């Protein structure tokens, strides 16, 4: 391993929303690193801070209500949170791209597909005419968009949801970013199309070496696509580790509960398991571990002090008083 910077290092990121009901700590001390070519899955319930984490990375937190109040986002060693808006604009286009959940609104309904792809390619590569057109068609081909030439003249409303999602991914990938933030890219797609789409994403990743942050709440997707997993709860990463670790030795009760919720193949007649209780009110977090009220393994200390990180095994960290190092 060269002793250089990781592609992305997030350190103690804090994003708060100042609402009438009080300060909502949507992201509260999130740290993780991501290497080129890797996929990190951010998993968690709705409202656990996954999306806000992603928005914070590109500094798109809706202001003035939301604000990044602390932490560092180091992209190849450079702190994005310290950049001026103009510098940030350059970084966003060149190094970071994003795919969002709803393919219905992620394309401009007033412009043709061709125009929208072309504009991004032209902005970042400065190509012209034939070279530009070839590059555009290549970008669409890479995402397996059939009949790319003919599609250039169609409008978004003429395409299906899966096709639109591919087009927006083609746009995102056309400038060969280092980091792709995919915020629940498959939620709005059919299950069959989901698999197909993620397969394409993996292919593109193998081809370009892009690092992907994959936000999802589907452990099936995690298992098939992610190298590492970060489980979020109430704005904090409660457990992080390689996908194998997380599935084999989940050490945080929340992760264990999430995994129990998955319908197993062999348990066909059993009813689905759920996690009792509700996610906490982020404006009024309980002291100690936010998961404590719902935790089956709750101990007195849990409601008093937030647990320090426990190194369960190399590269596998859990924030829980009950977690212990696995003896290998």
């Amino acid at each position: 391993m060269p002793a250089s910077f990781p592609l992305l290092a997030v350190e103690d990121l804090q994003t708060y929303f100042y609402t009438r009901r009080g300060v909502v700590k949507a992201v509260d001390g999130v740290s993780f690193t991501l290497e080129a070519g890797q996929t990190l899955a951010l998993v968690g319930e709705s409202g656990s801070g996954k999306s806000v984490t992603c928005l914070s990375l590109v500094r798109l937190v809706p202001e003035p209500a939301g604000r990044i109040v602390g932490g560092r986002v180091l992209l190849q060693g450079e702190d994005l949170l310290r950049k001026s808006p103009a510098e940030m604009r350059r970084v966003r286009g060149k190094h970071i791209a994003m795919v969002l959940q709803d393919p219905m609104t992620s394309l401009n309904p007033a412009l043709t597909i061709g125009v929208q792809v072309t504009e991004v390619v032209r902005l970042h590569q400065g190509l012209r005419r034939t070279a530009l057109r070839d590059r555009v068609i290549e970008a669409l081909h890479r995402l397996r968009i059939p009949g790319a030439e003919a599609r250039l003249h169609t409008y978004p409303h003429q395409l299906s949801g899966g096709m639109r999602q591919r087009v927006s991914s083609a746009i995102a990938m056309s400038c060969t970013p280092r980091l792709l933030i995919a915020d629940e890219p498959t939620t709005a797609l059919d299950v069959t199309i989901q698999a197909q789409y993620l397969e394409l994403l993996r292919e593109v990743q193998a081809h370009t070496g892009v690092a992907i942050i994959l936000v999802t709440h589907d452990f099936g997707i995690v298992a098939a696509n992610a190298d590492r997993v970060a489980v979020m709860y109430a704005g904090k990463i409660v457990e992080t580790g390689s996908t194998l670790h997380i599935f084999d030795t989940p050490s945080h009760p929340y992760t264990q509960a999430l995994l129990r919720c998955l319908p197993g193949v062999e348990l066909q007649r059993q009813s689905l398991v759920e996690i009792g209780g509700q996610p906490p009110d982020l404006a009024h977090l309980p002291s100690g571990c936010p998961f404590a009220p719902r935790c089956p393994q709750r101990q007195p200390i849990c409601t008093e002090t937030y647990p320090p990180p426990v190194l369960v095994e190399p590269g596998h960290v859990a924030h829980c008083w009950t977690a212990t190092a696995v003896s290998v």
Partner: protein
Amino acid sequence: MAIAYPVEESIATKRWRAGWGHVPLFPSLILIALVLTAVLAASLAPHSPTDADITRKLVPPVWMQRGTWEYPLGTDRFGRDVLSRVIYGSQISLVVSLLVIGVAGTIGTLVGLIAGYRGGISDAILMRLTDIGLSLPTVLIAVVLVAVSEPSFRNVILVISLLLWPRFARQIRGETLAIKQQDFVALAVVSGRSNTWIISRHIFPNVMPTLLVICTLQVGYVILLEGSLSFLGVGVPPPNPAWGLMIADGRGFLATAWWMSLFPGLSMLLTVLAVNLLGDWLRDRLDPKLRQV
């Protein structure tokens, strides 16, 4: 190997096409006639609109006693041909409304886009200005403004524009707020676009339908306002053959020489009616809820 898939026309496209086949006949004919009249005024009008001759004053229309084909719609109190004046009057109405819509539309759209997109303090300031603009008693202000400066063609246009832009600004801002929320705008920011680019390339094309509808609906209002101002003597200065001016001219002769006011009034009525009907139709056609299908 790329296979060329036939690209099917969506329902929306088909509807849209079918829609153009249903352009309402009456208003379009009136408007086409109006534009042709204005463009060809010089060759259509039998006389000069300002050619006065006191010896042939107050000649009635051709179908009445003493009427002659020389002056099909009669003459006014200075002996000017009413038909020719009505024909030339269409030029004034058309030019005034186009210029006003151009000026007010540009200002209003820019203000609306900026206020809606930037939000915050710019939004607050621009929208309070707009509120003030909307709360001004239109005709009264126009009378005062034109009375302070002197009546001229240019002043009329500036005054009406000044009073009209808030209507554009308000609507466009609302529309901008809605479009700004869409993901493609966020993605454009992520891909490193400047605000100017995003506004002109992503927001503006999507407010175009709304803009088109406002423009059409405001044309009728502008024509009426210009008519009112001319009628009050603070609009287009005489001897220009503005319709409002002609109506005012004939006011004292309504009992005896009603044709002086009737025909310009009728022209104004038909024009405004046609524009408004067309605007209503356009609004229905471009309604985003209908377009989404």
